[in-house]
């Protein structure tokens, strides 16, 4: 049974999640990928205000395809997360509690998740038309010049994801693969 959770995430919600949990996320999340992460980090280092509040925030690593007329967004599946690893620890230090992407994270990210109480979810990579159905509103709130890489505020309803890494060191990728590896 999938757990229904609300974004932004509270500390309690994060504490409650374990690697392997299926979740349905509703509420407000933000998109950000490579270049947006670089700009967010540069802003933080320069002491500037960010385009959104990081407290409890969930960032979805996605560069959606353009919306067709009458649609709120185009296809919107996750991009590979490790490219954001250089930036994520600082964002978590400043309040980020959830990341949605695909693929394995590196140790500094996992350590920061434990330290700051954050969770890493995977959405199904390539199931982008299906996922788009759970996105009810989208607006660009920063870095419009980056096109697909702009930061968007999304309103989501029952956005499906699965907990890969929890704040206790649980790792679904490790556990899952170990279970099915032969020889």
């Amino acid at each position, binding site marked *: 049974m999938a757990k229904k959770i609300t974004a932004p995430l509270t500390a309690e919600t994060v504490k409650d999640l374990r690697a392997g949990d299926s979740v349905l996320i509703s509420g407000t999340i933000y998109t950000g990928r490579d*270049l947006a992460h670089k700009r967010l980090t540069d802003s933080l280092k320069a002491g500037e205000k960010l385009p959104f509040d990081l407290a409890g925030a969930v960032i979805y690593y*996605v*560069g*959606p*395809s*353009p*919306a*067709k007329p009458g649609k709120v967004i*185009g*296809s*919107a*599946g996750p*991009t*590979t997360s*490790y490219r954001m690893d250089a930036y994520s620890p600082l964002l978590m230090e400043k309040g980020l509690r959830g990341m949605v992407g*695909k*693929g*394995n994270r590196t140790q500094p990210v996992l350590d920061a998740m434990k330290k700051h109480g954050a969770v890493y979810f*995977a959405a*199904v*990579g*390539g*199931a*982008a*038309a*299906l996922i*788009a*159905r759970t996105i009810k509103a989208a607006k660009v709130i920063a870095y419009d010049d*980056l*096109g*697909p*890489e702009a930061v968007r505020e999304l309103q989501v309803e029952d956005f499906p994801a*699965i907990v890969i890494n929890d704040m206790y060191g649980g790792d*679904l*990728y490790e*556990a*899952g*693969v*170990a*279970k*099915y*590896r*032969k*020889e």
Partner: protein
Amino acid sequence: MKEIQFETIKDAVAKLCIDANCLLGDDVVQAFKDGLKIEESPAGKDILNQLLDNEQIARKEMMPICQDTGWAVVWVEMGSGARVQGGELYDAIQQGVAKGYKDGYLRKSIVKDPLRRENTKDNTPAIIYADIVPGDGLEITVQPKGGGSENMSEVKMLSASDGAEGIKKFVVDRVARSKANPCPPVIVGVGIGGTFEKCAMLAKHSLLREIGSVHPDPFYAEMEKELLERVNKLGIGPQGLGGRVTALAVFIEAFPCHIATMPCAVNINCHAARHQSVTL
């Protein structure tokens, strides 16, 4: 001489870009269904079902299967008896790609320079590989290639003494190290032989083969079968959550080799294994 109009080529390329991104091949859909029969992991089965649903939604709404609508890799076989009327072939292809990515609401994923990274805003330039062949036809294939799986690809200059086992180890290891990143279940394209860059092109070209087709050379047919088995023992499974179906197929293309070399390239394709062709 058969004359083919510039605009005809441009429009055909635009349509290929849109169709390739929104309509997944029957062979891929069948491979998901076959995968469901052998997948043991409940999460893995769930993902294969979601990929089937996704394919249906994309087809019905003509929206991209994946938001990463890729580099437009374009393979051209031009008959020596064909010529383009009203402009240059390469211009027609580039303009067709720009039109297709705009009209089809496809994502523009190309930056002008690898270090300065400013988006070209129309997904050009396309990567074009053209060959002159006998006849007077013009065959064009568009193969949108996603970045996530491209990042898990590699060329290695092996020695002849590494033998077939050296190649196999490299291929299996490359998939193992890719883990969840290239959106498994993947298709593994393998190029063996040629020069450094030819080898990589062989690997990319191999990804155009139909899933389920058997390599015409029994030696490589056997190697493909063994590699698929070994890759699927890794346990990575759909989306890397653990399971049986890590790869849907392994395709090999081999080419003559220099006496001093044995290059091998692995080009990973995700399950969004997209390509469409037309003959004008």
